């Protein structure tokens, strides 16, 4: 009896330890062995990530995930994320990669690894039609909303601290709630991304495009495990291939429209 229990226990221990080791191995190998690529994507970020009329994930980021899976010859799986989940999901290993308009800040790079930029955005406001906000300076004394855990939130809070207007800020779980807040008059301006402004202003009669935010352009990167340099290298290569094959322009044209921004940073070698 005692012996059986001991054997069972050691078998259980072996089983758990094998699970632990697979979790820490090479992501590239893991994905190929598993046959599935798990992509974290933010789905409240139209037209980059959203749900179509059948409630299925769609958008620029979703296509990028599918393309990466196709390059690896594996299936892909979309893991819908909120903004503040983008980094934890990589740290805990629940996703192999995150396509989610993630700005490559140095602070974040201490936690996760970034590829070279795969899309460029800038922050812009959407404002209630009656608020009269036209320039950035008009935002003084107005109620500002953004999604929790995003760069716009952090950048705005720095400015708000200078202006002494932190109390006028309200964070929301999703960008959609930010837009609803502006549409319902709970906030005067919601800070979002330039690509989102057009679909939102088309959707709501009482929301118009607002001023561009004064902070720098958002260079957004694909996110992977920080320690896994081979995987990050592979992601870099993937990003350049998307551009070289014309797929980048094709998808940008489909979802955002117009010419895709050049993924080059003037005056510096990336």
């Amino acid at each position, binding site marked *: 009896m005692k012996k059986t229990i001991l054997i069972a226990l050691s078998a259980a221990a072996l089983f*758990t330890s094998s*699970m*632990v080791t697979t*979790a820490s191995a090479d992501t590239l190998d893991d994905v190929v062995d598993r046959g599935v690529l798990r992509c974290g994507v933010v*789905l*409240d970020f*139209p*037209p980059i990530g*959203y*749900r*179509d*009329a*059948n*409630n299925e994930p769609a958008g620029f980021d979703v296509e990028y995930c599918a393309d990466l899976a196709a390059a690896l010859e594996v299936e892909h799986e979309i*893991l*819908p*994320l909120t903004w503040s989940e983008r980094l*934890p999901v990589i740290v*805990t*290993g*629940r996703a192999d990669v995150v396509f989610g308009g993630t700005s490559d800040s140095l602070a974040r790079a201490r936690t996760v690894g970034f590829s070279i930029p795969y899309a460029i955005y800038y922050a812009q406001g959407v404002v209630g039609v009656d608020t009269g906000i036209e320039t950035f300076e008009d935002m003084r004394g107005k109620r500002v909303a953004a999604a929790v855990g995003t760069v716009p939130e952090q950048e705005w809070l720095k400015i708000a601290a200078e202006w002494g207007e932190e109390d006028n800020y309200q964070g929301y779980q*999703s960008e*959609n709630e930010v837009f*609803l807040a502006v*549409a319902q008059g709970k906030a005067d301006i919601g800070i979002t991304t330039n690509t989102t402004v*057009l*679909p939102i202003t088309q*959707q*709501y009669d009482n929301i118009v495009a607002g001023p561009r935010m004064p902070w720098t352009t958002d260079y957004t990167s694909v996110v992977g495990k920080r320690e896994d340099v081979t995987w990050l290298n592979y992601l870099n290569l993937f990003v350049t291939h998307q551009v070289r094959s014309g797929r980048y322009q094709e998808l940008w*044209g*489909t*979802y*955002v*429209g117009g010419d895709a921004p050049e993924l080059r940073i003037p005056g510096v070698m990336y």
Partner: protein
Amino acid sequence: MEPTISFFSGLQISDLWYLMEAAWRTVLISALSITIGTVLGVVFGWILYEGRWAAALTLGPLLDVFRSVPLIIQLVLFYNFAPIIGLNLDPFFSGVVILGIYCASLVANVARGGMEAVSRPMRRAARSLGMSYWQDLRYIVLPIGGRAVFPSWVGVALGVMKDSALVSVLGYIELLKASQILITRTQEPLLILTIAGAFYFALSYPISRYAASIEKRWTS
């Protein structure tokens, strides 16, 4: 922009079907958690009842923690803790684990109350009739104590069903998460929330009425 792609679309009949599927997932995760939680909870309750001070010092405080920390914190903690020890659980299983333990911590108290509701003389009589300890539990304590605490148990079960809405923060698409998704797509919060609320009400109200009527019948 290409006219063929729309990022927002109105509510369609198929969306009602989508909500129904999500309601089914709410039922599924609730039923599983309540079953696991009840079985575990009865065992815990029995340990608390029989274990005296040993249980009061170990299991009691442990279960107390699950009752004293908000469920949403438990869910977030467990979901982020599991991968650290190498368990890659999806939102559904994380939800079942935490809801199950949470349910067990509540049922344990209910079960202990049920056992305490059976009077000592009754149990001594059962034993003196030649019943074994387990026969006594099965044929005396279960029917009498079970009856006494059945309404409380229904209350706990319905509570867990409603609390399953919190698993939406992990991304499991149950009823409330599905309605959030539809709100994002269609921008009709009031209508969709009303439908979701009606679903919850339809799940919970009949059961609570049924339990109330049974309670009335048993006490009269």
